[in-house]
């Protein structure tokens, strides 16, 4: 397992327009270029930000990735995927970018 290669993939997706487009068009094709396990690729493909963070991926990357590329960009859903529930889900509402 490599948080470094996961970060490499997510960083490219956060800064390279062409990478974003390739990922949107064909996530598996995009991920093939990285030496990731099938499980790691699934975390990325399925926007499993909880698993990504558990693997050590920088939360700034998971948040940017979620906000730019996930089908459901809501930050409420993002926190849910990180394991939040109840009141914690509502603790902020703004449409966040990185800070």
């Amino acid at each position, binding site marked *: 397992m490599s948080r470094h290669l996961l970060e490499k993939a997510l*960083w490219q997706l956060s800064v390279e327009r062409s990478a974003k487009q390739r990922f949107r068009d064909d996530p598996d094709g995009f991920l093939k270029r990285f030496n990731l396990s099938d499980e790691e690729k699934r975390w990325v493909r399925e926007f499993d930000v909880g698993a990504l963070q558990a693997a050590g991926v920088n939360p700034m990357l998971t948040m*940017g990735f979620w906000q730019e590329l996930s089908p459901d960009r809501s930050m409420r859903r993002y926190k849910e995927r990180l394991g939040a529930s109840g009141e914690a889900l509502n603790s902020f509402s703004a449409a*966040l970018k990185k*800070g």
Partner: protein
Amino acid sequence: MGKIVGGFWMPHDPVMLVAPDAPAQAVRDTVWGAYERCAQRLAALDPTTVIIIGCDHYILFGPHCLPSYVIGTGDLDGPIEGLPGLTKGVIDNNTALAGRIVSHGAANGFDWAVARAFTVDHSYSIPHQYVVRPAEQVLGRSLPTIPVYLACGVDPYIPLPRAAQLGAQIRAAVESSDDDERVVIIGSGGISHWVGTVEMGQVSEAFDQEIMALGVAGDLAALTAYRDDDIKARAGNGAMEIRNFACAMGAVPDARGEQIAYAAVPEWVTGLGFLQLHPGAR
């Protein structure tokens, strides 16, 4: 001889721009008023150059090259992000002074990574556009503004004591200059905030007040004694940005702080502190 004539701590919270109306009006007034007062105070210091200590949020530098500290020595533009209120464009740098900081560093054990053509991010542009630009208006002249970025957002992080030493090296480099530069240094950073983690939205007012008190006391030793794990546990990954505060304080000779404003703003996911660093007697 060049001089560091003062410094500031201030936040660079982009949520403030994305969701301007989220907190109560009084809070908004406090925060925006603090930027205005910093601008007035910056102008009053009659500076010739500003240095902003910013932080990359894993956009500017990738996992193939994570520098401990970088300085922009050449052309500048930005910010890289499209954020409401921030204008993109070319930015005026003081390339001579930035180059001097690098060569002075090389001769004194500080191996700067160098950005010769650099696009800044919001950690530079928020202080630049809300404090430096208005001060330029007041003074009626340009204030070239050097960007410095410390590794606060992506590991390996610059050690806190090293950030303070780097500030002292910046001061020594400025003081070694023949030019009569009057330099103000801005440590740009939130206090407590959790960025992209499940705790996001929490603010740790106790931690923030502790940091502001150390700033007021000018207690650089205590400010640089925090362990990274404790900072993250008590105040979030965003609070690693107190490195930028340590660097600014290390640059201002015998600094004492004066609190300008503080607000805990969960709606903007951050504890926002504004402080002026006054040079002591030397």
